[in-house]
C-alpha cells in the first residue's frame, strides 16, 4: 500500500515519547505512478496543443458518419479559432501538427497500457483508486464536495488517501476519458475503420468519433486545470515534491499540531 510507509512508528520497547511537532514523512506515490505522471505531463500537452492545431484545419464538428462544409455542424468557428500560443507548432501547419500528434500518440497509448497492467498487478487500482461502498454514499460525496469548496484539505492519515472526488476524477480519466480518446482517435483512421469496423458502430460514425474526441480532449483539459489548481491550493512544493520523490510531508492533524 502506498500509504503504509509512515516512518514515525516508535519501536515497541521504547516508552512512547511526547508527541513531538513531528515532520511526518510518508511514502505516497510508487515509481510507476510517478514515471507515468511526468511522462503524461509532457505527452498530454503535446497531444492537446497539436490536436488544437489539427482542429484549426476544419473547426467544425458534426454528428454521424459524414460531415463537411455543406452539412450541419453542432459546433463551428470562423477562420482558425485556436491562437498560436495554444498550438503546436505556433503558426498554422497541419502537416507538422499531424506528425507531432501521431508520433506522441504512441507515448500516450503504450505507457497507458503499461500503467494499467502494472496498477492492476500491484493493486494500485484495487487498493487506492477503487471507491469504497461507504465513500460513494451521497452523504459522503456531498461532505467531500463541501470540504473542497471550503478549501478544507485532509490532514493526518486522511491526507495519505485519495478522497472520493479525487478517486472519481482519476477513475474517469484513466478508465473512461483516456481509452475513449484512443479509440475515437483510431476511429478517425480510414485504415483502422477497415480493420475494426466496430469502431464506426461504437461511436456511430467517423464524424461522431471526431466530435467525441474533441469533447473528451476538453474534459481532459478541464481535469488538468482543476488538478493544477488543487495542487497550488494544497501546497505545491509538498505535492510536486511527493510526485518526484514519492515522499509526502503529512499535514498534521489538529491534535498533532
Amino acid at each position, binding site marked *: 500500500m502506498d500509504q503504509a510507509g509512515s516512518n514515525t512508528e516508535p519501536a515497541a520497547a521504547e516508552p512512547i515519547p511526547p508527541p513531538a511537532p513531528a515532520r511526518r514523512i510518508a511514502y505516497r506515490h510508487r515509481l510507476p505512478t510517478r514515471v507515468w505522471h511526468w511522462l503524461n505531463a509532457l505527452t498530454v500537452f503535446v497531444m492537446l496543443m497539436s490536436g488544437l492545431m489539427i482542429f484549426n484545419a*476544419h473547426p467544425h464538428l458534426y454528428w454521424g458518419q459524414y460531415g463537411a462544409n455543406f*452539412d450541419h455542424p453542432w459546433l463551428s468557428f470562423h477562420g482558425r479559432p485556436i491562437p498560436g*500560443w495554444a498550438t503546436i507548432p*505556433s503558426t498554422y501547419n497541419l502537416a507538422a501538427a*499531424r*506528425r507531432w500528434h501521431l508520433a506522441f500518440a504512441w507515448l500516450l497509448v503504450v505507457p497507458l497500457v503499461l500503467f494499467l497492467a502494472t496498477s492492476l498487478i500491484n493493486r494500485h487500482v484495487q487498493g487506492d483508486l477503487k471507491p469504497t461502498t461507504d465513500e460513494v454514499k451521497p452523504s459522503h460525496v456531498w461532505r467531500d464536495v463541501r470540504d473542497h469548496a471550503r478549501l478544507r484539505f485532509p490532514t493526518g492519515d486522511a491526507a495519505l488517501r485519495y478522497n472520493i472526488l479525487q478517486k472519481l476524477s482519476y477513475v474517469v480519466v484513466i478508465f473512461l476519458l483516456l481509452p475513449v480518446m484512443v479509440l475515437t482517435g483510431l476511429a478517425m483512421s480510414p*485504415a483502422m*475503420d477497415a*480493420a475494426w469496423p466496430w469502431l464506426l458502430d461504437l461511436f456511430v460514425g467517423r464524424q461522431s468519433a471526431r466530435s467525441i474526441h474533441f469533447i473528451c480532449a476538453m474534459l481532459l483539459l478541464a481535469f488538468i486545470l482543476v488538478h493544477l489548481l488543487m495542487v497550488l491550493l494544497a501546497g505545491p512544493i509538498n505535492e510536486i515534491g511527493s510526485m518526484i520523490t514519492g515522499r509526502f510531508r503529512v499535514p498534521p492533524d489538529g491534535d498533532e499540531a
Partner: protein
Amino acid sequence: MISRRNFVVTGASGLLLGGCDRLNNSVRFRAALRSAEKLNMGAQRLVVPRNALAREYSEADMSPVFRSNGTANPGTAEYSRQLAENFMNWRLVVDGMVARPLSLPLAVLKSVPHRVQITRHDCVEGWSAIGKWHGLELSRILDAAGLSTRAKYIVFHCADRFGDKPYYESIDLVDAFHPQTIIAWGMNGHLLTVPHGAPLRLRVERQLGYKSAKYVQRIQAVESLAGIYGGKGGYWEDNADYEWYAGI
C-alpha cells in the same frame, strides 16, 4: 505572489512553445517524428488484413452535397481542349515497369464491367463526405499491363498543376491491388464532374483524400519513388510534408 506565479506560468508556456517551434525546425527532431510514420504504417499493416474492406454505405447514408477539394478545374489549354471534346480523346497511359505498356481510350475503360461502391472520403483536414463511385479495379489494369515483379509503387500522374508543379500521387502494391482501389469515371450515378476529377480519378478507400488523385492521365509502375519530382511520392508530400502513408 499571484503575479509572480503568473510570471512563472507565462514564462514556462513561452519556453514550452518556443521550444516546440525550435524542435519543429530541427532537422533531427523532424526525422524522429517522421520515423513515427513508418511505425504507424507498420502497425497498421500488421493489424489491417490485406484485403479488409473500407465500409460501404447505403444510398441513404450519402452526403447530400459532396464538396470538392483541391483543384476545381485544371484550366490548362490542353485540359480545356479535352473538356470541350467531352474527353473523347482522353487516354489513360500505363507504363513504367510493365510488360505491355497501354494507352487506354476512355470509352474502353467505361465499356468493361465496373465496380460501384458507396464509401466515405476522409479529408486530412478532418471532414468526411460519403459518395458513390463507379470505376474499374486498378488491379485489372495492372494485370492487363503485366506488372513487373520488381515494381514496388504505382505512381499517378495528373492533369492539374499547382503553380508550375504537376499533381501526382503514389501507392504501394498492397493498396494498388486492394479490391476497392478503382480508377473511377463516375460519381453518384453520373460521369465525374470537373471539380471531382473528370474524366478519371483514383479512389484509395483506406487512406485520406489527398491520395485519391483526380484528373489521372498516366499510371507508372516504379521500383522506387526517388527521382520522381521531389522524391516523396506525391505533390503534398513533396511540398507540404504530408505523410506518404495516409491511413491515419
